[in-house]
């Protein structure tokens, strides 16, 4: 089958298991983000794909062929390193031409390729520059161009944008996405920035502590997190535990909430995004889906207003826009509304 497949891949460093048994399929042509907190094994996974790290167990298949034992230099994958790893002794053009030159491509063909690639990353006429004279964003583009020089089957990037400042990062995210759509190369990007993943990816792989938690498109990851880790790691959320008290009903401290897909019995945890919680002044009517609370404090961040609420002893955060801001202040009694479709039932992490 076409695409990249992990079959029960495991990676240990000595006693320490960096990647627990993982099976995963990445369809051809997709833009995938590996997302997770620091140290969760993202880089390790990416390096195994590139062959820079040998898998302890399991197989990696590309388009049906086992590539697990093929050495890096025969895999023909393009990779962009976190620190970019531009060759300091070569010019921009020589860097980009490097993979061609070592394959014996003729000088004129190299020149043509360099020109084409520099146009692609919007850096025309830079071929002669020493790389030390480039700005961060320009270096970035050169590293990308170099990785693409061989028209790789797979395009791997390890936190490619983390060194850039916020503004530049955003524009590079969009460019990278457009580039990938134009070329149609299967692309895997490691990041620990969830915003970045949400912006770029067709498919997000959420990892923590060497395990894959969820693989899904970004909006689904946000709207339907599989477990508490994902819910909490992607955006911020309120986790509310309760006990099933009837079909579609959940008894929580302070009242009852409504939710779809609730199991028949048992204890479950809900995730409710702060921006989906509605707060109104005055103590609530205590109908299902609405709890009484008190305002702890309110923070105005300019673009949004954060309301920290205490509901039956539990901390709940709600966010609203300045225009929708209810007329409340710290200490006020409020009613807190949890819309049914905003209450997501979580599985075990």
């Amino acid at each position, binding site marked *: 089958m076409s695409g990249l497949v992990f079959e029960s891949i495991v990676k240990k460093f000595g006693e320490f298991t960096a990647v627990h048994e993982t099976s995963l399929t990445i369809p051809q042509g997709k833009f995938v983000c590996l997302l997770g907190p620091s140290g969760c094994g993202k880089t390790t996974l990416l390096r195994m794909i*590139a*062959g*820079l790290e040998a898998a302890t167990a399991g197989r990696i298949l590309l388009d049906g062929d086992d590539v697990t034992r093929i*050495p*890096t*230099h*025969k*895999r*023909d*994958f*393009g*990779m962009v*390193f*976190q*620190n970019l*790893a531009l*060759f*300091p*002794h070569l010019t921009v053009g020589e860097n980009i031409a*490097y*993979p061609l*030159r*070592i*394959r014996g491509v003729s000088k004129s063909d190299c020149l043509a390729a360099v020109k084409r690639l520099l146009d692609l990353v919007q850096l025309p006429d830079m071929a002669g520059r020493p790389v*030390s004279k480039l700005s961060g964003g320009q270096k970035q583009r050169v590293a990308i161009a*170099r*990785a693409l*020089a*061989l028209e790789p089957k797979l395009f*791997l990037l390890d936190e490619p944008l983390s060194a850039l400042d916020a503004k530049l990062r955003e524009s590079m995210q969009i460019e990278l996405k457009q580039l990938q759509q134009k070329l149609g190369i299967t692309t895997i990007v490691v990041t620990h920035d969830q915003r970045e993943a949400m912006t770029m990816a067709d498919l997000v792989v959420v990892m923590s502590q060497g395990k894959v938690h969820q693989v899904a498109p970004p909006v689904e990851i946000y709207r339907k997190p599989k477990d508490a880790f994902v819910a909490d790691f992607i955006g911020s959320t309120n986790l509310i535990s309760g006990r099933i008290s009837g079909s579609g009903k959940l008894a929580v401290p302070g009242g009852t909430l409504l939710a779809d897909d609730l199991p028949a019995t048992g204890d479950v945890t809900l995730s409710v995004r702060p921006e989906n919680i509605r707060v109104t002044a005055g103590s609530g009517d205590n109908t299902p889906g609405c709890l009484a609370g008190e305002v702890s404090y309110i923070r105005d961040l300019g673009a949004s207003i954060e309301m920290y609420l205490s509901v039956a002893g539990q901390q709940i955060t709600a966010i609203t826009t300045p225009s929708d801001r209810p007329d409340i202040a710290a200490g006020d009694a409020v009613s807190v509304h949890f819309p049914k479709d905003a209450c997501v039932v979580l599985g075990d992490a």
Partner: protein
Amino acid sequence: MINTFILRLFLGAIALFMAAPLAVVAGVSFNERKSLSFPPEGFSLDWYAQIFTEDSWRSALFNSVGVAVGASSLAVVVAFPLAWFLWRFHAPWARIVQVLGLAPFILPPVITALGFLSFWTTAGSYGQAWTVVISHGIFFVTLPLVTLTLGFEAVDDSLVEAAATMGADDRTILRTIILPLILPYIISGMAFAFVLSLNEYIVAYMAVGFTVETLPIKIFNSLRYGYTPTMASVTVLFVAIAVVVFGLIARFGDLPRLLGAWRHDDDS
């Protein structure tokens, strides 16, 4: 401020301390008479001319330079694969070879010298000019080994990995990435070995002193009938060579970095 004054004083004192014997040697080299008087009596550049006009000094100079070139090249040729191996591979036993590479510099030189003397006579090559090149090459292998180890440490792993993802095998990486990056370290290791070989006496003497008279041997032999100012002028010439060699290295490379300096902000 008082602090900067003390600082200057300290630096000045060190500079004076380091320069004083050089001043004596330089002064002596201008003596008019064949004597090592200081302060010099009269002024003459004859002793400089003599380095080149007098056969024995000239050939000693050329011998020294030849031996130093050969020995420093050999030292690099031996140190490079060793440093590369230590950097590239994970093999604890290779540390033993590393220690062997560091040891020649640590032993009392006279012992190394006598060891070579026995060795070359036993091997039947005693008296061949090339034996001193090997002897010095091994004796000074420590220097390029140290600079190359520093150099390899400074090569960013990800450069090598990046090259591998682009299809370069070990050999290609060595040729296209590592060699160019490590070149300054090769040069500085070689320069160290070169300069020290130029001035080494006892090993050169024991290995092949009677066939190849190097400058230090020539100087020592001259002690029989009095220091001649040529010794001083040769020394001044040597110091000048060292200044030029290291000055060139500093001009075309980053000398502090070659000597192990390194700051986070260096990359930019």
